[in-house]
């Protein structure tokens, strides 16, 4: 007989006995369970109510810890009770207290949610969790008596385990309500973070907004302006809702920090009734305010990767992936360095930083065939200084095989845009200089889809944009 059926049959057995022995009591229990069940579907309309409801409701976070403590204590007492019968006696009392405390906590929780007009999925989930917990406790009470008579039946322990799981889940929902949904994961080491479902904050995960604005909102604002609650009709849990504003109109005015309601509210004196975050929640730090201000001043873009004037520690550019070790070829590289001609120069003392192909001294005579000779070093070359060399479009195919290339200087060469598309395979390329070449803007367009290409220079070429930003084009 499998364990599951054993559990089921013994549970049914116990249930039978309980019904037989305590019919009246059970009736009351069932009624309570029904009422509780109905609570599962109680609607919260999101309208704030009279003050005294809220006043009482705010004792919920205090009271809620009493049943938590008792529920955690329960399996401990039952387990230890195997050896020490006196503890088992105590467990019965603890269980009843736990049930009573749970009901009280739910009541105060309802007062809080109803009084403050909280509504939202997390509130509902938290409420349901609490109710489920009470029902489970009720079942425990019902089952326990007969369980005491028939020792070692697993059904009661299964119930206890379920109780703990429900408790954990419900407590987590409650924690998310008060501390924000990213409270646990915010400082989680990146290695662990990968296993947590990533929050789809924005379509530009490396943007300044996603990295430095959203986390501030998420920690400090979203608990009242998000899925849980929508105070003032304002949600701050996505870029779109942030820009859409709330009942009082828009809260972010791009390029106008002084006209942005959000910045006004967080910079009021904390004693002001309109100060945000309200209700004594931790205020924004000066650093966070400065960050938002600079972002708004710079245009409040959802895409911009950086904001001028704002430095954030730890926001260094990610180190590019290491290249292989070229030291086996060192003899050849040194020979090259000592002779006239193009040279391979280590980027740094660390071989994994790769090599630079330097042609400064022989640029005028460095042509396609010479570049082809460097093909065997291709995996190690991270930067190719080919400015003002004699290479032509033919070399583009060669260069497309330099898979680790991060910077490519082609300024002042005979390269045209004809074959430039082949460079799209260089996934690491972040710098491409096509100044003083014959490329046109149409030919450059396909390059813009390259994921890492951040610096594309087209100065003095037909593709040079006519804007006032001195020919700097950034694809990000």
């Amino acid at each position, binding site marked *: 007989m499998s364990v599951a059926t054993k559990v089921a049959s013994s549970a049914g057995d116990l249930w039978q006995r309980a019904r037989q022995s305590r019919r009246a009591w059970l009736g009351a229990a069932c009624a309570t369970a029904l009422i509780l069940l109905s609570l599962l579907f109680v609607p919260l309309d999101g309208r704030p109510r009279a003050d005294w409801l809220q006043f009482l409701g705010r004792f919920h976070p205090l009271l809620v810890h009493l049943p938590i403590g008792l529920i955690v204590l329960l399996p401990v007492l039952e387990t230890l009770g195997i050896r020490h019968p006196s503890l088992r006696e105590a467990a019965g009392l603890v269980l009843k207290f736990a049930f009573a405390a749970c009901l009280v906590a739910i009541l105060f929780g309802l007062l809080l949610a109803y009084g403050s007009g909280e509504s939202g999925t997390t509130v509902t989930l938290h409420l349901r969790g609490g109710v489920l917990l009470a029902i489970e406790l009720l079942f425990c009470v019902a089952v326990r008596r007969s369980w005491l008579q028939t020792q070692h039946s697993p059904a009661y322990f299964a119930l206890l385990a379920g109780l703990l799981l429900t408790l954990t889940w419900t407590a987590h929902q409650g924690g998310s309500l008060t501390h924000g949904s990213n409270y646990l994961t915010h400082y989680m080491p990146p290695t662990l973070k990968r296993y947590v479902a990533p929050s789809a904050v924005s379509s530009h995960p490396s943007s300044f907004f996603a990295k430095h604005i959203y986390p501030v909102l998420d920690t400090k604002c979203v608990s009242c302006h998000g899925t849980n609650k929508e105070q003032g009709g304002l949600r701050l849990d996505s870029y779109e809702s942030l820009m859409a504003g709330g009942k009082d109109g828009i809260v972010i005015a791009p390029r106008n920090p002084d006209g942005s309601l959000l910045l006004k509210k967080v910079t009021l004196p904390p004693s002001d009734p309109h100060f945000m975050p309200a209700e004594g929640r931790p205020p924004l730090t000066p650093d966070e305010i400065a960050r938002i201000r600079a972002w708004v001043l710079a245009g409040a873009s959802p895409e911009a990767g950086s904001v001028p004037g704002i430095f954030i520690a730890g926001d260094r550019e990610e180190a590019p992936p290491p290249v292989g070790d070229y030291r086996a070829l060192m003899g050849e590289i040194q020979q090259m360095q000592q002779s006239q001609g193009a040279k391979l120069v280590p980027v740094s003392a660390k071989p994994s930083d790769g090599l630079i192909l330097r042609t400064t001294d022989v640029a005028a005579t460095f042509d396609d065939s010479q570049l082809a000779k460097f093909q065997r070093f291709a995996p190690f070359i991270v930067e190719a200084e080919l400015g003002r060399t004699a290479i032509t479009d033919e070399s583009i195919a060669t260069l497309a095989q330099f898979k680790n290339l991060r910077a490519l200087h082609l300024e002042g060469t005979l390269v045209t845009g004809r074959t430039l598309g082949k460079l799209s395979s260089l996934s690491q390329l972040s*710098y491409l200089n096509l100044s003083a070449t014959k490329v046109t803007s149409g030919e450059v367009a396909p390059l813009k889809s390259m994921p890492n290409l951040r610096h594309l220079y087209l100065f*003095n070429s037909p593709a040079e944009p006519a804007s006032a930003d001195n020919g700097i084009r950034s694809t990000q």
Partner: protein
Amino acid sequence: MKQHPLCSDCEDKITPMDLPIPSGLKKEWATCESRRQFLGRTGKVLGWAALAGLFGEASLNYRALASGPNLQAGSGINNLGLPHFAPKAKRAIYLFMSGAPPQIDLFDYKPNLAAQFNNDMPASVRGNQQLTGMTAGQARFPIAPAHWPFKQYGQTGTWISDLLPYTARMVDDLTFIKSTNTDAINHEPAIMLMNTGNMNAGKPCLGAWLAYGLGSMNDNLPTFVVLQTKTNPKENNQPVSSRLWSSGFLSSEFAGVGLRSVGDPVLYLQDPAGVDRQTRRKMLDAVEEINRQTLAEVGDPETNSRIAQYEMAYRMQSSVPELTDLSKEPESTWDLYGPEAKEPGTFAYNCLLARRMAERGVRFTQIYKRGWDVHDNVVGNLPVLCGETDRGSYALVTDLKRRGLLDDTLVIWAGEFGRTVYSQGGLSQENYGRDHHPRCFTVWMAGAGVRPGVTYGETDEYSYNVVKDPVHVRDFNATILHCLGIDHNKFAYKFQGLDQKLTSPVPAFVVQGILT
């Protein structure tokens, strides 16, 4: 006192080596050494061998490193283990404002001072600081607010004086440090400290350290070039000497090569009339042969430097005229740098040269502009000084940026110290003077390795003391080295029993807050 070799009452015996005879004969003589020479040299050799044994292998390595990475022809094989890590900047351009620009009139905006015009500066601000002899005797220290209004510029809203309309356009590209401070209050020690990390002469300067540590990026131009701006006789020009670009105890091939501001950039670089390239080459080959013999005989590494310098000069015969030939510069260059840039020796011209050198693989270029020492007549002098430098600096940064060079070039703008908030001499509504002030001054950087648009450090309301994030000259130099991939603590050269560093033995810290 050296005597004429043919003088009859010579104290020392005349040897054939001193006589004007064919070198073949001398060589022959040198091979048949006398017993005295033999014994004398044997003694020395034994002594040196014993000493070398005592020191162990370390001393041998040290000698081998003395000439730096350049000893091996071509660049890049770096037995110093440099760069320590992947550098953000390959090269640097240092705009040195000699004489100390007044931070308070240019960058360090103090709006509250206007109301305190001619008030005495509170004694508590100065504390127990010893002033220079020029103002220590002043009866009072009247506050002189900046004569020019400031405005906010760029997306960062950085405050810049009306004196610098061009710099104002690029504030979002610049990194300002307002809390730089130094130990010296007079020009010579301060400018030495800024450039060499030590107030005393004899230490290598930043450029020499870079040339020694990182080596050259090209074969045809020097690794480290110094450009001097023509002086304006109306300005108070403090002397700028070659001590500032000296290689100190490093091999002299790492010293800065100065290009002249007037006439030929390098004197005697052209072949004399009637000497063609082949003749010159033959001559140089012969000189090199002789120098190699000397090196073999004496073993002085300076001989090596001399060989390298002859070769460099030969290559510079063609590379320098190409460098200074601006006829192929497009019209957009002149639109950017202004017509002044066509006149050799102006600051704008030097900035343009610096950009051309960056393109040609010069590792470090330092441009000196003198005349910032405005002890009096600030109102008269400062507009002239700013007019001379403002557009050039802007043009350089902008030009590097549009050509894609700012991604691996670090541009630095700095003087040796700041100037006082109080007026030196009489203060009137129309004019004032400012004395030396080491406790705070503003510098800026731009380009590879530093975060654009950041203003780092703060001064008090008198722009007198640093109140937040002080950056000592040592920290500043450590940060520059960091941008070029060098850990300043590991970059040392043993000399006089000390691991000598650019950042001196006192601990220095890289300014993390401005790095990318």
